[in-house]
């Protein structure tokens, strides 16, 4: 079983009106997700293993299970590559939810990435100090 958690403190997120906003503070990038992405995000970050999350998807969505599995793997890899989640020892124990009686059509999970704030990091005040104790700009 593989478990993951939010890559905090550099990554923060908020659930609002059934949507999720994620901010990577170090990269100056922010994200939102479509509904399938939200299901995966909420599942992984609330303590489900990646295997349990996939099972949750298969229970929630109708469609080709091989396609669902492949889309999940791709999305999961993207979350890791973006540094939004990191592996952890074991997720917290949570009550398992029952799959919906009526399955929904499967939509590929999407991670929308916004980079329009990155220039603000030019004002990044975090810098190393030189030998004399004075801060110097990170190259």
């Amino acid at each position, binding site marked *: 079983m593989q478990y993951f958690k939010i890559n905090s403190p550099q990554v*923060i997120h*908020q659930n*609002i009106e059934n*949507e999720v*906003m994620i901010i990577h503070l170090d990269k100056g990038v922010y994200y*939102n997700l479509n509904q399938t992405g939200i299901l995966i995000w909420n599942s992984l970050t609330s303590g489900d293993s990646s295997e349990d999350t996939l099972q949750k998807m298969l229970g929630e969505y109708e469609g080709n299970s091989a396609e669902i599995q492949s889309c999940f793997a791709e999305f999961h890899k993207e979350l890791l590559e973006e540094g939004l989640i990191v592996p952890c020892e074991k997720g917290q124990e949570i009550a398992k939810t029952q799959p919906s009686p009526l399955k929904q059509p499967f939509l590929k999970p999407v991670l929308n990435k916004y980079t329009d*704030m990155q220039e603000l990091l030019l004002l990044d*005040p*975090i810098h190393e100090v030189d030998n004399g104790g004075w*801060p110097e700009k990170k190259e």
Partner: protein
Amino acid sequence: MGEIKQEQSYFEKVCLAFQDAAKKAEAIYEYYYKIAEHSICLRFAGESLVPLMTHAFKHLQTQTVSKPDLTLCLWDRELTKTDLPPTNFCRSEYYASKPGLEKTSIYSAWQPDYAILSILSCEENLGFYCIPQAKSLPYFETAAPLRLLFHWWMQERGIQLIHSGCVGKQNKGILFAGKGGSGKSTTTLACLLHGMDYLGDDYVLVSHKDATVYSLYNSGKIHADNIHRLPSLLPLVKNADKLNQEKAIVFLYDFFPAQILYSLPLHAILMPKITGQKATAIKKASATSALMALGPSTIFQMAGAGEKALGALVQLVQKTPVFSLELSTEAAEIAQFLDAFAT
């Protein structure tokens, strides 16, 4: 814990350096303000920074207060011949201990391009701001001084400094949320020129618990390419000779004192968007879209902002009506539209 001790010790050294600077300057100047229900003292070692750092707060000035809630001490190293104490800790590690503030109540930031140090102890309600020389102060600092120090201290008191403009009418505040270039400043200043009340065009303070917006700066900034859209502002611009390099700055309290207010209850959040249409229009929008407009541009500008700031913004957008504002090309028409909206 070792790092934290070093941070505390460094704060104490900065405190001693300011005392030394004040002695060498042979004069301390104190100015008092009421900002977001708190009494604030700005204490200067020498007068070189006084005109540069106080103009934007002029509308909030009060009489002397015996025990201010927060004291911020400022000095310039050239005038006072007082350097900063050398550091022996890594500032990146220093920051790493900040999120959540569980371990320490000391915040600091170093602006390398201008060699400006801001450091604050939330426990002692005492902060310091030190620059190499008054003449090297960047123009945007005069328009919006001490942003980080206010952000850190106010956040601990349930008040969030946000990247937003705010105007109002009849005790209804309208917040403009959006990144730079969205039309926020032009819209805010057009509303002021139309006669509406004004709290700020770029940064305001918000109490997310009772949705009250507080003014912080009476300055207005507008890109030189856009000032022709508000021609009556042009004679009021402070840095008219530098518009090839700088945004135009106007200290609005000097010209519109009755319209620069202290606070307003928040009535709506509008997200301006430049459309090129002839008529301004408004459409209901989601709290999520307001969070997308407000959150990143606030959080990425404020060192040390994170989970707490985002949580505050969620509370704010959930309790406030949100609209997208499709801007026309005519500033006066936009202002008329918003005047009617707020009435």
